[in-house]
């Protein structure tokens, strides 16, 4: 066996050559079929599968074409059967095996369609299907030849500038050529020539695609090894196809029909059809190859620029901020909900939240670069320039503050400014100086809820302060646990976290227990302030007790479940909020 192992798969020379051979035989079959159509001999043999009741009728007139087509078709059918058996026997990849079975099914279906054209006297839909399936079968055989090729198994990869764009361009080209096959078959096999307009339009689209794609791929020096020759071949095929198409048009549409098919006409139309099959096969093979061999040089700048700016605003965190704002808004006031005001409040907070997150990422770009979790953020990864992030953050923040001032009220706007100061100018720098930063961060985190409340009521009653306190104290156990989860990262970054001088987690665990116990009385304050009723008090007591118990457990188990505790803390807050809202609504 002339085989050797490539990337874990055996290159089977015989299988590859045989696939190529069957594909080439199919091309011959397509030519033979094309001649049948072009000479109009499709029905020169009225019976199927025998010809005039014989295996071999007299080879005269149209029978020469029709019967030759049948003989070649039978041969290709047998070859395909052998090919499928060959694949099932010696191919390891299940998906390739399956494709070979599909090929067998296709050739059988094609034979049945061929029989139907004879028996039902060439009905248009069957003739068109027979034409399209024949070429699709040819494409599949070409793909089988590709998948068994040495190159495919070696999988050379070429880093190019815009692999995604090239692949998409190839894919749409293939799509249009398939479409063109259908339109072409319609023009060829049906009487009404409405398909001709579509055929022309699609031809133009394909031409434009090929003109775009050829220079785009050929200028990639490295990829030329694989792509240059097929692309040049494709360009030649497409150029000749235009002339063959125009020639066919002149013979079939412009010139008056002759008493019997002209030789030039027959050759022209058959060549046009066969050339089309080749174009389809070459393009499909190139498309599939582009997906296997081409990778991006670096991340596509154009496609991810918007994405980078969005990720600069930390959309998930911003959404959490908006949820907290909504809570404050809902808890404030009575009566029907002023939806427009809610929208303005949320939009203002979203702008501020997004802006200060961008500013935070700008300020922490050097620290982020040191931590695995954050190294791929837009600025530290180098995708976005730091200055651009700064400008973007400033613009969002300023617009957000002005928006709150203009469309809600001055107090809400002022609290917005306070959030910006506490987060950007206090919390962010303090993270690098003192472990007390967590407390400042908790203030910034609890402020959006107050903004929501104030935006609706334009006052700061006790209720708002109570919620603020709950959110503030809730963040302590929550962030201690997070700090522990990302301890390794934080330790290497130079950020001063409370977990820093705590190798075994005892100190952090104790802090979590203490802060959870500290949180508990504050969660009961809403009952006193009149914003929580029975439902809330029951929920707060049960959930709070459970939370303290979980904190104790975390400490006993030496912080192994810190990650779960983080999620648990979020659920705890959610229960408190839902109970509060439920008590207000019910």
């Amino acid at each position, binding site marked *: 066996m002339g085989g050797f192992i490539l990337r874990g798969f055996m290159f089977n020379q015989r299988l590859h050559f045989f696939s190529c051979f069957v594909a080439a035989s199919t091309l011959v079959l397509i030519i033979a079929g094309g001649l049948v159509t072009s000479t109009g001999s499709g029905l020169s*043999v*009225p019976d199927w599968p025998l010809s005039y009741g014989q295996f071999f009728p007299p080879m005269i007139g149209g029978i020469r074409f029709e019967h030759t087509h049948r003989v070649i078709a039978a041969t290709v059918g047998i070859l395909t059967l052998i090919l499928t058996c060959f694949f099932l026997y010696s191919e390891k990849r299940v998906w390739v095996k399956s494709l070979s079975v599909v090929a067998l099914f296709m050739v059988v279906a094609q034979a049945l369609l061929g029989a139907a054209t004879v028996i039902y006297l060439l009905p248009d839909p069957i003739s068109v299907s027979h034409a399209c399936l024949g070429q699709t079968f040819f494409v599949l055989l070409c793909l089988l030849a590709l998948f068994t090729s040495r190159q495919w198994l070696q999988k050379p990869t070429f880093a190019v500038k815009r692999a995604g764009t090239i692949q998409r361009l190839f894919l749409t080209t293939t799509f249009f050529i398939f479409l063109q096959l259908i339109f072409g078959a319609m023009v060829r096999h049906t009487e009404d020539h409405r398909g001709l307009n579509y055929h022309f339009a699609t031809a133009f689209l394909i031409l434009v695609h090929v003109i775009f794609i050829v220079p785009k791929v050929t200028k990639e020096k490295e990829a030329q090894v694989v792509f240059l020759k097929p692309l040049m071949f494709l360009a030649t095929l497409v150029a000749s196809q235009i002339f063959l198409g125009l020639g066919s048009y002149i013979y079939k549409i412009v010139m008056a029909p002759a008493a019997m098919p002209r030789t030039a006409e027959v050759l022209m139309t058959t060549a046009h059809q066969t050339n089309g099959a080749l174009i389809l096969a070459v393009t499909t093979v190139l498309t599939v190859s582009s997906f296997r061999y081409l990778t991006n040089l670096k991340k596509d700048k154009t496609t991810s620029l918007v994405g980078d700016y969005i990720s600069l605003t930390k959309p998930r965190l911003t959404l959490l901020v908006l949820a907290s704002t909504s809570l404050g808004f809902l808890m404030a006031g009575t009566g029907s909900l002023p939806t427009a005001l809610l929208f303005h409040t949320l939009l203002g907070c979203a702008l501020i939240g997004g802006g200060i997150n961008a500013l935070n990422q700008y300020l922490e770009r050097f620290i982020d670069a040191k931590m695995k979790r954050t190294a791929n953020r837009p600025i530290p990864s180098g995708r976005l320039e730091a200055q651009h992030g700064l400008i973007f953050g400033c613009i969002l923040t300023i617009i957000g503050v002005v928006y709150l001032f203009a469309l809600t009220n001055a107090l809400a706007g002022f609290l917005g400014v306070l959030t910006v100061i506490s987060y950007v100018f206090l919390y962010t720098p303090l993270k690098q100086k003192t472990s007390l930063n967590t407390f400042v961060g908790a203030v910034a985190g609890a402020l959006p809820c107050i903004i929501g409340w104030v935006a609706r009521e334009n006052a700061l009653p006790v209720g708002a302060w109570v919620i603020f306190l709950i959110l503030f104290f809730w963040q302590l156990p929550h962030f201690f646990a997070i700090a522990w989860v990302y301890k390794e990262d934080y330790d290497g970054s130079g950020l001063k976290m409370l977990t820093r001088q705590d190798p075994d987690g005892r100190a952090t665990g104790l802090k979590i227990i203490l802060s959870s116990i500290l949180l508990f009385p504050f969660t009961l304050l809403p009952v006193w302030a009149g914003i929580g009723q029975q439902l809330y008090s029951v929920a707060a007591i049960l959930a709070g007790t459970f939370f303290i118990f979980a904190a104790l457990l975390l400490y006993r188990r030496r912080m192994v479940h810190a990650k779960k505790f983080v999620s648990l803390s979020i659920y705890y807050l959610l229960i408190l909020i839902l109970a509060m809202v439920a008590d207000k609504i019910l």
Partner: protein
Amino acid sequence: MKNRFFLPFLTLLAVFLAFQSSADASVVTVKADFSGTAPAADKLKLDADPKCKMMHADGLMSDEVLVNPNGTLKNVFIYVKSGLEGKKFDSPKTPVIFDQIGCHYTPKVFGVMVNQPVEIRNSDDTLHNVHALPANSSQFNLGMPIKGMKLTKTFAKPEVMVKIKCEVHSWMKAYAGVVSNPFYGVTSDEGTVMLKDLPPGDYVIESWHEKYGTQEQKVTVSDSDQAVDFKFSA
């Protein structure tokens, strides 16, 4: 008293009138004139079947447009297209003979009534397939591999024209005008068709030619003979 004679009288009158009208029935002579120069006939390439080639030592020309010496057009199918609605005509039982002889259809253009048998013959020592492509009736494609073979077919619905062709010999084409009345004909050497025994009335006569298409003319049949001229031009 009167009643005793009334019925026989009426019968007599009817017979007399019928006799009278048939005796006086006018003939409509339809002519297919041709002006201009007919396109030169193509020499057909018969190499595809050596037996066909042998039968035409001097070659065979395409016969799409055949102009008679008197300036009329051959192979024009003429029939009464309308004016006979509601009348029923029995289809003859005698078949129309449609022969394949010398790798050529004889006749090339013919008329046949709905459900009238068409006897298809193969007088050639070669193989033919007969493929009829009606739109209103069912298509058929018959293999006739043996000399002397006969097959009988009918067309169920009127249709002008039904194309018949042989895919083995791509030059072989024939056309059948399937009609529901007996007033039809195909122009031959004189370029005329006589429509006889048409009852008096208003009719539309249509003429059809393979290359020059269809034309219509109105005619009113009374007791005098009529002439209708169709003018085909190249």
